[in-house]
């Protein structure tokens, strides 16, 4: 475990989340990494700068860039690797060569995801982002989810509407249709989860330093798979903290997205 002196002390909760997000990309190699939310965006950049140098990232518009900008905005001219306009995005992602981390407004035990709306779709109580690319993403390539503030109303028994497809629904579709389906991780401000269980129910993979299993359970509406003593999410190394604080997130956006617990 590292307690860095850089930037004045130990890793914040936001930085722990960013490192957990970086770990989500470990072993991915030469694929497109797409992120929504600050912690995943910091995490993907961190992975690319350290243990996954072959990741592809876009500028958020239509080019693949070899030097993704800090989350606060560009610090140097982009080094463009390729052109990826919107019309080719679906070619790319339906081909399977992508790992996306999408924000989740609701998620259930099988990884069914909602960021479309709350309440009945015909007249929602809250219109959220809509379906966007979630149905096609989740059926085509590796998908993980990010929850910046985990509560029982996010980790729910049943999502109001399914935008990203979970394991129980995928199981009904058959092998050919779900060859690309792979809901890999859920990362929240409290913990990291995966679906490495016989029936693909969500498993508590690690709790962030300073978070108890009880706190996780108290903020989850469904029963999590909890096996033995749950490990702690790893701490950033000194070099990772330096990269986050000096290069990737110099304005500390992470700590606004995930306030450090008092």
């Amino acid at each position, binding site marked *: 475990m590292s307690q860095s002196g850089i930037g004045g002390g130990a890793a914040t909760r936001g930085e722990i989340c960013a490192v957990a997000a970086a770990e989500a990309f470990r072993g991915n190699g030469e694929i497109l990494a797409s992120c929504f939310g600050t912690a995943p965006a910091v995490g993907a950049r961190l992975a690319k700068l350290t243990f996954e140098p072959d990741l592809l990232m876009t500028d958020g*518009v239509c080019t693949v860039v070899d030097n993704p900008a800090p989350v606060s905005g560009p610090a140097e001219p982009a080094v463009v690797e390729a052109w990826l306009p919107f019309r080719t995005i*679906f070619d790319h992602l339906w081909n399977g060569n992508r790992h996306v981390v999408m924000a989740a407004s609701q998620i259930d035990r099988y990884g069914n995801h909602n960021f479309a709306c709350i309440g009945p779709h*015909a*007249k929602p109580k809250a219109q959220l982002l809509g*379906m966007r690319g979630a149905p096609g993403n989740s059926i085509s390539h590796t998908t993980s989810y990010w929850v910046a503030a985990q509560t029982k109303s996010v980790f729910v028994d049943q999502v109001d*509407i399914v935008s990203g497809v979970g394991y129980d629904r995928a199981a009904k*579709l058959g092998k050919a*249709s779900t060859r690309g389906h792979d809901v890999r991780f859920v990362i929240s401000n409290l913990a990291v989860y995966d679906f490495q269980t016989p029936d693909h129910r969500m498993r508590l993979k690690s709790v962030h330093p300073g978070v108890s299993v009880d706190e996780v359970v108290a903020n989850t509406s469904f029963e999590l798979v909890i096996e033995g003593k749950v490990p702690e999410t790893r701490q950033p190394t000194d070099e990772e903290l330096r990269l986050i604080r000096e290069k990737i997130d110099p304005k500390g956006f992470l700590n606004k997205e995930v306030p450090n617990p008092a």
Partner: protein
Amino acid sequence: MNKRTTEREAVAELRDGMTIGIGGWGSRRKPMSIVREILRSSVKDLTVVTYGGPDVGLLCNAGKIKRLVYGFVSLDSIPLEPHFRKARQAGAIQAAELDEGMLQWGLLAASHRLPFLPTRAGLGSDVLAINPDIKLVRSPYADGEELVAMPALELDVAFIHMNRGDVRGNGQYLGPDPYFDDMFCRAAKRRFMSVEKIVETSAMANEGPLQTRIINRTMVDGVIEAPGGAHFTECPPDYGRDEKFQSAYAATAKDDAAWQEFKKTYLDLENEAEYQKAVGKR
């Protein structure tokens, strides 16, 4: 051949209940001068097919949309279009919400004159539950896979905005992304293209590389010269998004008095020239 026309003449072709497609993407290169003319018209009950931006918010507010076919409605720097949100939460429109890729597939099917195109996008999600008219199709080959049969999104009229064009209907985008504008044109019976500037055909080669010339004259029935016509969406390299204006527009979703003032200042005007004058006065 000269296909030069005006926003007014183009919009005069619309009839109540028509299905129209609007090019661009989010708050990017939208044919806003045409949208503003639709707001001035009496047409209603439209089905609108689009990668939505402020075009959708404005048309919702004016009560022009009966049914919206979309993957998202966003202002980019503001992730959710606030006037669209308001219309949705009031149950004011029929929402045919699709996966973004399904929308492209529907436009491509229509532009190829096919009844549908197969895709896995949508399988297992509630896109199929909220769009019960979308059916599945089984592969006739050995795999026998069941796929979404995304129906063709056939349009009565398409509107797009390009950076340059000639009077014959050849068009050129000079920004980073063509979006789906060519598909909108091929999916539609009548096609109108507004452009920042009409130039001689021979001069288009000086404006940008060959690959920017994605619209040919078989795809366009009318050309409208509309400098600033995409305002307040972006139209690079001619101009960026007017973020200040967009923020003010977005804020009116939560303040009816501000909306009335916005409407009076920028929408209840005689024509596009008056709009551009009002924008210039700020």
